């Protein structure tokens, strides 16, 4: 009796839902006047579903869904957003098991290369190639390519070559934002003379302790020796013990391990990167080299703007021969299916229209230079985009993400932590890293 009653209820429920759904379908065109003209080129794919598998979670997830809602309505495609913080561990399992997602958002080129090895990743369709050629610099296309073949279009990007500071504190002390390395060091010396801590620092990050230090070294390798040496370094053609890498590390030592500027050097090792910049708004320490995403670490009461409580400036280059060096990070969209609706979503995600709509939601930047800078909601993202989309910039990707995981997500963290915490010598650190580089 109970079951039949339940069944009855369920049937009634389904009937009601269908009724409502049919009403909505009828009412939709009249109510929300979506202009479908911009989406006409993507075709009609009524009733089709595309899985978009990523490590992106809420609240970022909902802005994606908000931005592509019109696209979904006009093309009839449902984009099934599946976000998991275990993305990097699960994707290889899914691919090996034959249940690969239609689209995967690779957080780093290394994972893309590993998946291309399986032969399951499909080369980018012509429409995506056209978009990427049009909107991105060659460097970004190369990052989405494996062995010269282009697979994945860039999605979001973040700029790592930023220095966070407090405009209010700078104004109070009469400091100006430095635009060259010499100006930066002069400024740091002025701060030191006033008994201020010029640079904040923190490399603590639980199991990933040490990663901010890898960023600092990457910044200096790129700034001192350019993109070629940097690229060779990430593939171990240039060894860690190479004198150029050592000289870059010395440059870092003279900066972030300079007691005159940072105070207690060893404390950097036990300070978490989240805590490191908390002293900026109050002037406890003045500057912190961190990526654009560090904006999220400041309490909401701190206004992030050029005249606010915190803001960032571009970390200047050190070698005039290397033009506007920037260190970036970001995601790339690769496909495991070639169905027309998948290609349509891929093309849409690599378009300037999508990127323009997305940046207006804030908290996100792209290297897509088809996006007008004034469309950016957040000043900090606009600043990032200004460098990310700069065609003359020497842009490279976060090196520790390109190196084998055993180095980039392992030994480099621990060795650089020992360098800061235990004063391990550069010679010993580089020797250990070269020895740990996987043979094969």
């Amino acid at each position: 009796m109970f079951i039949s009653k339940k069944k009855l209820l369920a049937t009634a429920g389904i009937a009601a839902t269908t009724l409502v759904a049919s009403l909505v379908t009828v009412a939709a065109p009249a109510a929300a006047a979506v202009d479908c003209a911009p989406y006409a080129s993507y075709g009609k794919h009524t009733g089709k579903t595309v899985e978009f598998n990523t490590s992106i979670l809420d609240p970022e997830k909902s802005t994606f869904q908000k931005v592509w809602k019109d696209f979904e309505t006009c093309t009839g495609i449902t984009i099934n957003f599946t976000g998991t913080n275990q993305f990097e561990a699960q994707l290889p399992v899914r691919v090996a098991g034959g249940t690969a997602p239609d689209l995967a958002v690779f957080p780093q080129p290394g994972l893309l290369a590993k998946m291309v090895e399986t032969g399951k990743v499909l080369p980018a369709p012509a429409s995506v190639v056209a978009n990427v050629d049009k909107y991105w610099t060659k460097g970004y296309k190369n990052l989405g390519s494996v062995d010269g073949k282009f697979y994945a279009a860039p999605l979001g990007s973040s700029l790592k070559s930023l220095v966070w500071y407090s405009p209010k504190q700078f104004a109070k002390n009469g400091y100006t934002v430095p635009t060259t390395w010499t100006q930066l060091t002069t400024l740091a010396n002025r701060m030191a003379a006033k008994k201020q801590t010029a640079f904040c620092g923190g490399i603590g990050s639980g199991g990933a302790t040490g990663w901010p230090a890898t960023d600092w070294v990457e910044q200096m390798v790129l700034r001192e020796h350019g993109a070629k040496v940097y690229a060779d370094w990430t593939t171990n053609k240039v060894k860690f013990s190479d004198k150029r890498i050592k000289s870059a590390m010395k440059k870092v030592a003279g900066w972030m391990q300079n007691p005159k500027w940072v105070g207690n050097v060893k404390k950097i090792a036990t300070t978490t990167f989240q805590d490191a910049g908390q002293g900026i708004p109050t002037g406890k320490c003045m500057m912190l080299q961190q990526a654009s995403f560090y904006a999220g670490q400041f309490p909401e009461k701190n206004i992030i703007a050029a005249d606010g409580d915190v803001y960032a400036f571009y970390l200047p280059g050190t070698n005039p021969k290397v033009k506007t060096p920037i260190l970036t990070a970001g995601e790339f969209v690769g496909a495991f299916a070639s169905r027309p609706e998948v290609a349509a979503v891929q093309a849409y995600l690599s378009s300037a229209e999508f990127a323009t709509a997305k940046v207006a939601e804030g908290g996100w930047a792209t290297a897509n230079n088809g996006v007008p800078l004034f469309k950016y909601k957040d000043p900090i993202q606009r600043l990032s985009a200004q460098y990310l989309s700069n065609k003359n910039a020497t842009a490279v990707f976060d090196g520790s993400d390109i190196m084998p995981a055993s180095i980039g997500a392992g030994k480099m963290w621990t060795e650089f932590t020992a360098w800061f915490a235990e004063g391990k010598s550069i010679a010993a650190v580089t020797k250990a890293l070269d020895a740990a580089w996987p043979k094969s």
Partner: protein
Amino acid sequence: MSGFIATNLPKVTSLFTAMAAFFIILAVIFVIAGLVNGKKARPIALVVFLAPAIILLLAGLVIPTGRTILFSFMNPNSDGFVGFENYAWIATDPGVRTVLFNTALWTILTPLFTTALGLYLAVMLDRMRGESIPKSLIFMPMAISFVGASIIFKFMYEYRDPGDSQIGLLSAIVQAIGFGPSNWLLVKPLNTLLLMVVFIWTQTGFAMVILSAAIKGVPTDVLEASALDGATGWKLFRGVTFPMVRTTFVVVLATMVVASLKLFDIVRTMTGGNFGTSVLANEMYSQIFVQFDAGKGSALAVMLFLSVTPIFIYNIRSLRRERSNK
């Protein structure tokens, strides 16, 4: 709530189906085994009764051990043999030397200190009025996991610049006395000792309770007889009580040795193995799951396995001996 039931009902149903199927299969096997008569009855019964245990033992212990040993002779991806290269790395790498040294420190200092302290407390609190209260208090940290205890102690060792208000208890005390606080977890080898404190804090209660039970097991007439003979205090303890709880003492000690040999959580939570505090189990984890080197990780696992085994054998033997004595 009804939604929860609706989504999980199929799971529960399939669980019960699987369990029912399992019992049906078992019943069928037992019935068949029961039907067999004559000469073959005994061997078949042996197989039927031993099979589940043997299968579980194989799947859960023998095969994984074999695979780990095999992997320890292979490259990081476990698809090519490298001979003794991984063991050579253990023997020569300076980083691993620190790890082995730390592990040795842990296995020597922690068990001795924990067990000795446990014994001391057991003796001191024995037959005290209201002895259950201090005992319960000392035993309580046992209920906290190593990770929980590590987080607590991480806050106790927290360091802020001198002059700032210290949020770490240790730094605050030191500053109040008038010394500058130190970045505790960075100072070698003090940091390893400070990590040991966490272990001792959680495990002393366990040692105390077991030893206290053993002390209570010492017959009163023996104690009275020795008291009549003039043994008191230290003499009574050394000559009578301790020899009678010696076996228990050794078993507790051995348990602590094994626990500190395979210690992982405290180091992982408090320092992540940085600052020269890494131990064997932590290094094994890092090699396999952070640096994806199954070869070196397995070699470390084999090392750990080999060093734990003799203690286990000793432990089981002394337990057996004690049982046969009684």
